[in-house]
């Protein structure tokens, strides 16, 4: 099967990495793919609660690294979504309990039996991020339309290039079309121009995300949510489909421009 390893990272905290990892995993699994999500945030684990699997943790990734269990024993199978697995982070240890080469080894062990391994990177540019970057085949940089998040994304993109893991692809999360229209939020086009990397997803701000997180149910399962739709679209693009960017209504001109940007920019094929 030869899984591809996708790393979801951002530099800045709180931009939506964990939500995106969980939903990308659920969306890919819903397309009959076998997916393992790894929580890379040792000491501050959260992917388990976002996926609603927190009550089923027995072993975690540090137990695997330190030889207390086999890799398969630390994998939690999602009973609602066929083909989706979670390897949780340890909560009572710190980032140094795992090394970049441990992560490479774990991913290599998973590759033959799965289609995708998605790593939820912690914020920052230190050890946890380095751990998440080491095994990556593709890197998704998440940002919000705010100066601090864009600036941090640029740093992460630079490090990804320096580590020869690039080119990273960009996910812009929490776009508020009405604010963009008013001139009070940096537009997708401007962010893509500033960061100068290929765009793979635009996710609108959507209060349903909080509701689905409350329930521990991935929002991609909610067919009516715009954010869920946008995340489904990212999953299809990851699988190689050419999916146009979502039309977020009453933004005709703006989103038509995005369409142009997508069809003309980025890699060929």
């Amino acid at each position, binding site marked *: 099967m030869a899984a591809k390893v996708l790393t979801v990272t951002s530099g800045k905290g709180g931009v939506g990495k964990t939500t995106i990892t969980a939903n990308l995993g659920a969306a890919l699994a819903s397309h009959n793919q076998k997916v393992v999500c790894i929580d890379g945030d040792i000491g501050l684990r959260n992917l388990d609660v976002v996926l609603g699997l927190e009550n089923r943790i027995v072993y975690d990734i540090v137990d695997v690294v330190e030889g207390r269990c086999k890799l398969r024993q630390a994998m939690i199978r999602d009973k609602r979504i066929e083909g989706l697995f979670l390897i949780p982070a340890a909560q009572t240890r710190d980032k140094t309990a795992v090394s970049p080469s441990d992560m490479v080894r774990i991913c290599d062990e998973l590759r033959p039996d799965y289609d995708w391994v998605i790593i939820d990177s912690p914020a920052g540019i230190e050890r946890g991020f380095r751990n998440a970057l080491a095994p990556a085949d593709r890197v998704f940089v998440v940002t919000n339309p*705010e*100066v601090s998040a*864009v*600036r941090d994304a*640029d*740093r992460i*993109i*630079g490090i990804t*290039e320096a580590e020869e893991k690039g080119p990273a692809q960009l996910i812009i999360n929490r776009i508020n079309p009405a604010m*963009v229209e*008013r*001139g*009070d*939020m*940096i*537009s997708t086009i*401007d962010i893509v121009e*500033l*960061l*100068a*990397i290929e765009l793979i997803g635009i996710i609108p701000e959507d209060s349903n995300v909080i509701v689905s997180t409350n329930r521990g149910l991935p929002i991609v399962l909610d067919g009516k949510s715009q954010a869920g739709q946008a995340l489904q679209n990212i999953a299809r693009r990851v699988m190689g489909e050419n999916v146009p960017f979502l039309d977020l209504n009453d933004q005709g001109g703006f989103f038509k421009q995005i369409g142009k940007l997508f069809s003309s920019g980025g890699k060929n094929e």
Partner: protein
Amino acid sequence: MSNFMARLAGRNRKSANQAKERLQLVLIHDRTNLSNSVLETIKDEIIEVLSRHIDIESDTVSVEINNDGRQQRLLADIPILGAKRKR
């Protein structure tokens, strides 16, 4: 009245544009690790070296960094004094 004008002017400068302009400068600085004072030093030294060979209009020399995708370029614009004004 002037207050009103200032508010009008402020309204014309959308915050999204301000954010973009500020980010452009911050990202150049973050990517190159060059401060304005280093750029000033580079400019002074370019003027010094070139002045040994040609007459240049040192007051209007500009040295700045431009973005080209994810690459940065150092652009120097150095006006040369006309032959007429030499001698």
